[in-house]
């Protein structure tokens, strides 16, 4: 079982602690994505797994073996870097062969391994080219190839797609997913792009400020964010968050009240943050929905949907509405309807999710 276990992992640079005790279990063959804002310690965590940064405290186990003091080369991990880290003076084949030569793999075996992997990645016709003569996507593939030929226990990716344009990124994202399904190698993937995290991950780890906010499958995190940070990080656009106060029957936001039947259970008077996903509101009332008056600022058509930028009182919010081929009917919207069952409540002070109904 080539899993990766982090237990109380801490990283400090001198007196400055940047990772504050991370616990994480990556199961064998699992694809785990670390996601979070810039500077939250994703790369640092990944580099500690790789052995490129020393672990200040805690234990790291790979495949059942404690790795804190093990040299990177003996951890049997392969890493794909954001800037690809291709050797400019070597051609594609030699770049992929680099790690194998260092490990003294026999020549003919190197050759056949590279031929196989090049085939998988569609690089066969570029084997003789230097990195400078490749496109961004091809370079990215070479970087992946270099990791794959090593047949490591664990793949580590540090924002491997962030240097690509949007279209190529979508394409490579799917390719990485397919590769993982095919090779089944345990992977830890760092990104700050929540779409990448949602689409690739078996489980997502949301990090903030050197600590884990929540771990779970993409849909778990999307449906039940543990706190306002996670709620505001996943989804595009993310969940709207409005200050409100609970009453016996619902939540008051500004001068509107949203009915939340059966959810309050004696918490009336509590200050909360009410979370509403942009795609959950409707333009027409439905069963158990409450009307929320809004002032529309702007309509952004995206094609089949449009984003409505609006405000209620001082709170800015974004909603999604279907266009049905035209945005004309959206310009006059002054009320949206919020379905009770899909509203999330968070504690106003701690930001933690409240489950009052239970």
């Amino acid at each position: 079982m080539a899993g990766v276990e982090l237990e109380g992992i801490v990283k400090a640079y001198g007196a400055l602690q940047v990772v504050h005790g991370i616990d994480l279990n990556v199961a064998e063959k699992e694809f785990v994505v670390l996601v979070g804002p810039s500077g939250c310690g994703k790369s640092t965590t990944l580099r500690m797994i790789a052995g490129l940064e020393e672990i200040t405290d805690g234990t790291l186990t790979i495949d059942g073996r404690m790795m804190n003091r093990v040299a990177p080369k003996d951890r049997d991990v392969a890493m794909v870097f954001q800037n690809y880290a291709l050797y400019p003076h070597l051609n594609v084949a030699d770049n992929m062969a680099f790690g194998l030569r260092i490990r003294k793999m026999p020549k003919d075996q190197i050759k056949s391994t590279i031929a196989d992997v090049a085939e998988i990645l569609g690089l066969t016709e570029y084997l003789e080219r230097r990195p400078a003569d490749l496109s961004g996507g091809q370079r990215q593939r070479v970087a992946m190839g270099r990791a794959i030929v090593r047949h490591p226990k664990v793949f580590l990716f540090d924002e491997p797609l962030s240097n690509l344009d949007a279209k190529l990124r979508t394409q490579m994202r799917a390719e990485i997913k397919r590769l993982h399904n095919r090779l089944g190698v345990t992977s830890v993937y760092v990104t700050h792009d929540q779409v990448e995290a949602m689409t690739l991950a078996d489980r997502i780890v949301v990090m903030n400020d050197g600590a884990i906010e929540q771990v779970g499958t993409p849909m778990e995190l999307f449906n039940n964010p543990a706190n306002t940070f996670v709620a505001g990080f996943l989804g595009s656009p993310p969940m709207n968050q409005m200050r409100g106060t609970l009453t016996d029957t619902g939540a008051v936001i500004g001068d509107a009240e949203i009915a939340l039947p059966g959810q309050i259970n004696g918490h009336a008077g509590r200050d909360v943050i009410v979370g509403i996903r942009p795609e959950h509101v409707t333009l027409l009332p439905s069963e158990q929905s409450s009307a929320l008056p809004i002032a529309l600022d702007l309509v952004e058509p995206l094609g089949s949907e449009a984003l409505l930028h609006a405000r209620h009182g001082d709170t800015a919010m974004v909603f999604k509405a279907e266009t049905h081929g035209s945005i004309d009917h959206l310009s006059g919207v002054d009320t949206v309807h919020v379905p009770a069952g899909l509203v999330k409540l968070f504690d106003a002070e701690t930001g933690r999710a409240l489950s009052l109904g239970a």
Partner: protein
Amino acid sequence: MADQTSSSGAIAKPKSTATDNSRWAQTVDHFKREWQLYVMLAPTIIWFIVFLYKPMYGLQIAFKDYSIFRGVAASPWVGFEHFETLFSNDQFIRAVMNTIKISALNLLFGFPAPIILALMFNEILHATYKKTAQTIVYLPHFISSVIISGIVITAFSPTAGIVNTVIGWFGFDPVYFLTQPEWFRPIFVGTGIWQEAGFGSIVFLAAIAGVNPSLYESAVVDGANRWQMMWKITIPSILPTILIMLIIRIGNIMEVSWELVILLYQPATYETADVVNTWVYRQGLQSGQYDLAAAAGLFNAVVAFVLVMTANSLSRRFSRTSLW
């Protein structure tokens, strides 16, 4: 430049009515708009004209029977007579051979020295130690050649020199290093390395600093040790810099640092120490044969020109790196 002219020309066109002088109008227009650039360029151009191009006028005395009383223009032409004199002169031939031999030794030992030094510095992890060591090896570069030669002469002195003192400890007789022709080249080349290797390493250190750090990290994960990283990453990455420096060096093959030769040699060591430039200096300035000296200098320059062109085109062909 061509780009600028044409683009400004496109804008200038509607203004000029007469078509025949439109080109002139464009140029004037261009100068009016871009004059600041030319002002900034002027000092360099003037420097080149005054110090490099104007003296070339005097080169013609290599083909003339020059006398200072008649002046450059009035001296009669003599064709290649001075060159014939040069190549039938044993001393000149010897100087050419000495120049080539010293340069070859310099290239063999003096050129790799700063590269090796830079690679070694790169392996030092302790920051303070590294900085101190670097400062110490940079220092000799800032000492004037006169003092350098003084140090060398003192160090190799048969009576009080440190070298002979050490030799004395082992019970050997003192060696008169600086009067013996066979010792001149090793001492000269060694002094050059001592003086310039440290400073020369800066260029290579800068090149090493420019190597993408994730190349090393990737190699570490792949299992490379420091030695392998040096050979497989650092050296290939700075190869373009090494080649450029080599081309420049080859262009200077005929320019052995002759102030140092003059300071270190003596008639007893002319046999191995006299190089073209010192010979030119003695003929030209000391014996007053300016025309012959000019011919020798021109010969030197032509050889250097051919060498640097050859090195450049070879480098471009084989490594895609070239000075121009």
